[in-house]
């Protein structure tokens, strides 16, 4: 019995979620009930979250998993994000009576298992398996409303491109194995620069990671896939895989005092390009999901600034920014899903659809405004503090080019965020009236909570800072 516990404890969250997956499958097989499936998945996610501290205190260490504070903290952020998305997704799917929808929460749970595996893995095997689990679940989540051609198209696009990036990543891993004989991250880190094969290997791995992070130049798929995916899936897509990969990169970069110059240069170029391209291409979009997609590209550019600004300040800035990013993005997509109906042929995702939202649903519009202000980095939203933090880290580390780009691209970004906000105050187009969803209580509660978090921590950031510090430095 003791042996079993010591076997489970180092991977407790994964174990809990796997158990929940099995239970959910069994429940679906016995009787299809959306509510029960959602509840099982919710219990699984919350259980995994509660199991995290237990895992962190484990005496035994699983061979391929980390139990450092950084990894555990990121796993916690992933789980919290997943819980919020699940609540929003449950309210999004609640009306779709004609089609089975029980598998959607199940896919979300499986995807989260993959993401947590990535965040915790210190060996390339769990990293790759986790990434693939995550990707396959996401393809299902994107294509779930199969009555929407755009969703199928988006899923296919994602399948092809992510398959390609996985293949390249796998090739990179193979080269690593060939060069070093090891598949653990630490081995690669300490072998860096010694073997000739490592450079192409590193390049291929960067391509794979870049695709998941969707930084420029690996961003082409983002707007199409985000626009085609149903809103909760887009929220998942924009947050979970990115946090997971950021967790791995952060662990690698923060372990060493210095970043290798070639990697630093590649990240700088990607950061500058992401900020500019993301914000510039968002300018002319009419679809909110596309705007959020481009915006997420730019936000990942800011993340790269924080990653490059090593040191204590960069570390805190990164954690704060990632927390802000996930909350804000879920808030924005959450509002879109609250307004949309899963059954209809498209979401309420055009700028025209939200015209006059301020007068129809003032609170919902207020929360979307807060989320957009947060992404733009304007007080009193949380994003202001986060962006200032990243800038502070960048200025502190003398990242002149990146900071200059950040200022310029932020100004460009203001334009499209403001355009959406102003559209919400305009009179609606009566010609293009489209079925708007009824708002549900749990969904509203989730969005309301997110709004309160964005505003509350935006005005009083210290509790969040202390919390992050406590979690990530314990």
């Amino acid at each position: 019995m003791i042996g079993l516990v010591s076997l489970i404890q180092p991977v407790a969250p994964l174990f809990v979620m796997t158990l929940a997956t099995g239970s959910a499958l069994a429940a679906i097989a016995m009787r299809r009930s959306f509510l029960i499936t959602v509840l099982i998945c919710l219990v699984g996610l919350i259980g995994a979250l509660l199991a995290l501290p237990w895992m962190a205190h484990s005496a035994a260490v699983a061979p391929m998993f980390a139990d450092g504070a950084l990894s555990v903290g990121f796993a916690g952020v992933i789980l919290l994000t997943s819980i919020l998305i699940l609540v929003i997704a449950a309210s999004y799917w609640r009306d779709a009576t004609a089609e089975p929808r029980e598998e959607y929460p199940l896919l979300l749970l499986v995807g989260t298992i993959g993401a947590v595996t990535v965040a915790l893995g210190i060996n390339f095997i769990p990293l790759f398996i986790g990434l693939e689990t995550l990707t396959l679940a996401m393809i299902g989540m994107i294509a779930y409303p199969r009555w929407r051609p755009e969703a199928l198209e988006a899923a296919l696009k994602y399948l092809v491109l992510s398959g390609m990036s996985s293949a390249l990543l796998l090739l990179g891993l193979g080269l690593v194995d060939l060069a070093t004989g090891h598949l653990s991250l630490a081995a690669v880190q300490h072998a860096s620069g010694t073997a000739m094969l490592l450079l192409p290997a590193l390049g291929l791995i960067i391509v794979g990671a870049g695709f998941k992070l969707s930084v420029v130049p690996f961003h082409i798929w983002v707007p199409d896939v985000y626009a085609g995916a149903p809103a909760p899936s887009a929220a998942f897509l924009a947050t979970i895989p990115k946090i997971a990969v950021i967790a791995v990169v952060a662990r690698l970069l923060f372990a060493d005092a210095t970043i290798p110059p070639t990697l630093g240069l590649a990240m700088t170029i990607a950061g500058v390009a992401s900020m500019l391209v993301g914000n510039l291409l968002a300018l002319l979009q009419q679809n909110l999901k596309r705007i959020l997609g481009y915006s997420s590209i730019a936000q990942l550019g800011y993340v790269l600034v924080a990653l490059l600004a090593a040191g204590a300040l960069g570390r805190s800035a990164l954690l704060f920014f990632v927390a802000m990013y996930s909350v804000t993005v879920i808030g924005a997509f959450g509002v879109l899903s609250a307004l949309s109906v899963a059954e209809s042929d498209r979401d309420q995702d055009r700028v025209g659809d939200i015209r006059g939202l301020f007068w129809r649903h003032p609170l919902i519009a207020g929360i979307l405004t807060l989320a957009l202000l947060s992404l733009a980095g304007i007080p009193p939203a949380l994003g202001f503090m986060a962006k200032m933090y990243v800038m502070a880290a960048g200025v502190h580390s003398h990242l002149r080019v990146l900071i200059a780009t950040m200022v310029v691209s932020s100004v460009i970004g203001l334009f499209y965020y403001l355009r959406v906000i102003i559209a919400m105050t305009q009179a609606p187009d009566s010609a293009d009236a489209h079925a708007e969803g009824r708002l549900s209580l749990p969904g509203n509660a989730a969005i309301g909570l997110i709004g309160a978090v964005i505003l509350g921590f935006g005005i009083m950031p210290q509790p969040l800072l202390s919390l992050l510090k406590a979690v990530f430095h314990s």
Partner: protein
Amino acid sequence: MILVWIALIPIIGGIVVWPAGRLHPLAPRVISLAILFVDLLLTLKLIEAGGSGAWLASFYAPWVPSLGIGFRFNMDGLSWILVVLTQILGIIAVIVSWSDIKDRVGFYHANLLWSLAGSIGVFIALDLFLFFFFWELMLVPMVFVIAIWGNENRRRAAIKFFLFTQGSGLLMLVAILALVFLHQQQGGILTFNDAALLATQPTGPFGILAMLGFFLAFLVKLPAFPVHSWLPDTHTEAPTAGSVILASIMLKTAGYGLLRFAVPLFLDAAHHIAPLAMWLGVISIFYGAILAYGQADLKKLIAYSSISHMGFVLVGIYAFNAIAWQGVVILMVAHGVSTGALFIAVGAIQKRLHTRDLAQLGGVWTDLPRLSSFGTFFVLASMGLPGLGNFVGEFLILRGTYAVAPLVAVFASIGLIPAALYSLIAIQRAFHGEATVPRRVSDFGARDVSVMMALALGIIVIGVYPQPLLNIGAPALGNLVPAKQVSALPQKGRGG
């Protein structure tokens, strides 16, 4: 604690009046008025209470201790004058909107109060981060006011306003961060406290660059040539109360920011840039005046005249002496009052005659004698007629500038001639002459007359007896630049 309430009351008020608009359209107006009166009374009491040294009141509480950011509110005479100006013009903005704004009354007043709260915060925050927080906070509500209740091209104007001011603000944020880290490197602690950062005094290229971050942000907001282009557009599209707040209050945050931060934090760099800044001021004086002369739109004319007046403010600030700085304070207050009144008059004309085009006006005096006489009075005030407030301000600025930079003072004085030209032309074309079409409209009612009367009284009092205002401002101005730093400064780089 009272300072916190002064900033907080309008914010809470905004949260209250938004839903109140659903109950009755009158509710937000009455509540807003009450809130601003309470706020004004709280502020007025501070001057009686006195306080220690130059500070009338102060408050500190930690905000983000791990980054050295605090809720650091301090009020001296300079802040006090500008806060009172904000509250009084806020009250007037509410009254002006009484019959102007008919839809979404609750949300409108909420935005009005929030933007006022942001301005008040800017005037009393002495933590650089808190200052920046309020600096940004006042923008979004103003954008809403313009974008929802403005004229035809309101969306474009709102976005332009936002991009200009926000973009330049980001440069200031970078400069703030650079300054804070330099302070930390020099052996200090990580803090955004203005009083601590005053000791940093960066020099050399770093000082110039960091100072430019502040300078540009304030230059855009002031606005001065060549970064003024948002102002005419924004004023043309903004509703009357929006124009009043923008011209009378928000432009003053820039003058205040220069006086409080851009100059004292970077004395050396500020002295280096002084000639450039003063000549930019002179160019703005002429540029604003000449463009005002060419305008057919009365509201645009006033907007360009603001650029001209703010040129004097810029010249005065970089003259670096007590007399000029006194003049800057007086001119900011007087310009706030007179330009606010002029925007109200133009708004009233537009509402009654549905045009602001000087070619279609003319002969308004016959139909609207009360409106026209007040309009004329304030145009004369803004022109700098002796005996009225603006004259005192401009005179003191020129007097102070002449001592250090005679050439700048001479050119700035010549700038008064085009000012007289566009003012008189405006009076003549708008109010005098024959009406092109017969008009049947009502003149100013009791409410409008009392507002204008109050503003006119203010201008006359400042013009005839400015001493109380000078007395309140003097200790603050003496306190802006720590004496230690001034004496250490070599006598160089003065303007002219």
